[in-house]
């Protein structure tokens, strides 16, 4: 294991990256879609590097002759001599010890991929509204109902001086979160780069018959915009949708919206 430790780590890390990108769409729970090609390239490169490392280690003769070829020079440890006890910098044939931490995320991804962020994270952050000024938006695409993201609906509801939502039937998809006084929201997290930067967008749903859905249920809501407050003011927030239909759906492949 000491000899093949680095190779095993590289294979494990590469394998974990490939499992969530090449063999499925789990990566969308953690990062944005645009990163996929880079992740696949990295995963393949790590697996290849792991294989090459294993072959190189295999070809090198026993540990005593290793000294001339491998990163186990005894004098090298002397090079770190002044900094003994600096954790993670003890090099042996097994490579840097701190590298074993890589097994944590790798095994998590291979065995129990952590779930997408949901109502817990949404509840902890005050929902954000896009930072922008009031102005006229481009016309809504055709379609009845018209499919919109929660973020897009919110911006148009709060900032569109052209009132492009007026008279249109829209369809939003998100998960359920609950307010204090029996209100509920269709909520969606917005992720720019990775799940660490998630921000929350939400739309209050009114007039739904079925208001007892538990939090984190994914729903598609069709309905029409109910204007509220002056454009761009705090009173206009959060926007309101008068629901015509509420349908439970499966969690979409990409659980987040892009900004």
């Amino acid at each position, binding site marked *: 294991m000491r000899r093949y430790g680095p190779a095993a780590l590289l294979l494990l890390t590469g394998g974990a990256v490939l499992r969530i990108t090449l063999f499925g769409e789990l990566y969308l729970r953690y990062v944005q879609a645009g990163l996929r090609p880079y992740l696949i390239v990295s995963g393949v490169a790590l697996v290849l590097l792991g294989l090459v490392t294993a072959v190189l280690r295999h070809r090198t003769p026993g540990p005593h002759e290793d000294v001339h070829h491998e990163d186990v020079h005894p004098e*090298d440890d002397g090079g770190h001599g002044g900094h003994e006890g600096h954790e993670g910098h003890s090099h042996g044939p097994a490579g840097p010890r701190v590298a074993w931490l890589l097994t944590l995320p790798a095994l998590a991804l291979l065995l129990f991929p952590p779930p997408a962020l949901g109502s817990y994270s949404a509840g902890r952050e005050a929902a954000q509204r896009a930072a922008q000024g009031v102005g006229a938006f481009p016309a809504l695409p055709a379609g009845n109902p018209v499919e919109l993201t929660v973020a897009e609906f919110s911006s148009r509801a709060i900032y569109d001086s052209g009132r492009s939502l007026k008279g249109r039937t829209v369809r939003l998809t998100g998960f359920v979160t609950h307010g204090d006084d029996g209100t509920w929201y269709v909520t969606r997290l917005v992720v720019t780069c990775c799940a660490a930067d998630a921000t929350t967008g939400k739309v209050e749903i009114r007039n739904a018959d079925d208001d007892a859905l538990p939090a984190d249920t994914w729903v598609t809501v069709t309905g029409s915009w109910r204007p509220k407050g002056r454009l761009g003011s705090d009173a206009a927030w959060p926007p309101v949708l008068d629901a015509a239909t509420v349908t439970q759906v499966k969690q979409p492949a990409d659980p987040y919206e892009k900004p």
Partner: protein
Amino acid sequence: MADGLRVVVRASVYAVLGGVALIAIATVVSVLGPLLALDLYTPPVAAWWTVFTAVAVQGVPFLLLGTVVSAAIGAFVPERVFRRLLPRNPALAVPVAGLAGAVLPGCECASVPVAGSLMRRGVAPAAALAFLLSAPAINPVVLVATSIAFPGQPKMVLARLLASLGTAVLMGWLWARFGKEKWLRLPGRGTPSAHATGARAFLTGLQHDFLHAGGFLVLGAAAAATFNIAVPRSVLDLFTGSPWLAVPLLAVLAVVLCVCSEADAFVAASLSAFPPTARLAFMVVGPMVDLKLLALQAGTFGRSFAVRFASATWVVAVAASVLVGWWLL
């Protein structure tokens, strides 16, 4: 012939043993896992794991890019190239290296190993450090992201460029003037790339650097996830009123949130209750000082260096943001 047979036999023995071990682990984990999970897998814990793996996964391609570049520098680029490219005088080499940061596209994970291997190749530490700080902050990808996040405010992009470059160059000069060699564990004395060149050195260097930096990336991801779960961003709303509090507060937030430099402009834009200078400070500090970077730097350059360097950088970055913000925004 016998040799080949022995290899085959040994390989199959390893495969069988490894396979049995894996199956055993998988069985135990899949039986016990759900039992434990019921008790331990509360929503905050689940969110912690998600953010933790997200930061690690996000870092992998950039870290690999950085270690490929650094291993290539170590194995294929002779020292004299840098001696010719960079001015002999450190005071001049620092701004040149700072501007050179614009060519490495990626976030901060990539720049640490590259800076390490530059030092290993004889580049003055002051110049390599200026590169380390400026690369994740002023490359085109990040500047374009900033202009998208702040539409119609080209001054914000300019302010970010100036404040980041200014901080990087100033820190390089400060290191040239006051830095002590003994704080800095010059990286790579122990790695093979210091001794050899060529394809084999490239591979061993790459493998070593990636595993080493990867371990510290995981450490940083754990810290980032912990703060992400422990400190809700809405706590900040308490401090939006006073600019004197807002600037240092967002500068601290940039350290603990560890948002990567390609995304931090969007986060800064969403903190709309804060004055522009505070948001500028968030974007200048973030790519230069954060927990993930601190772990990576401690791993590459030594802990005594990382702590001193990060705290000095934080102060300089805040000062630069205040000055540039006061002038431009």
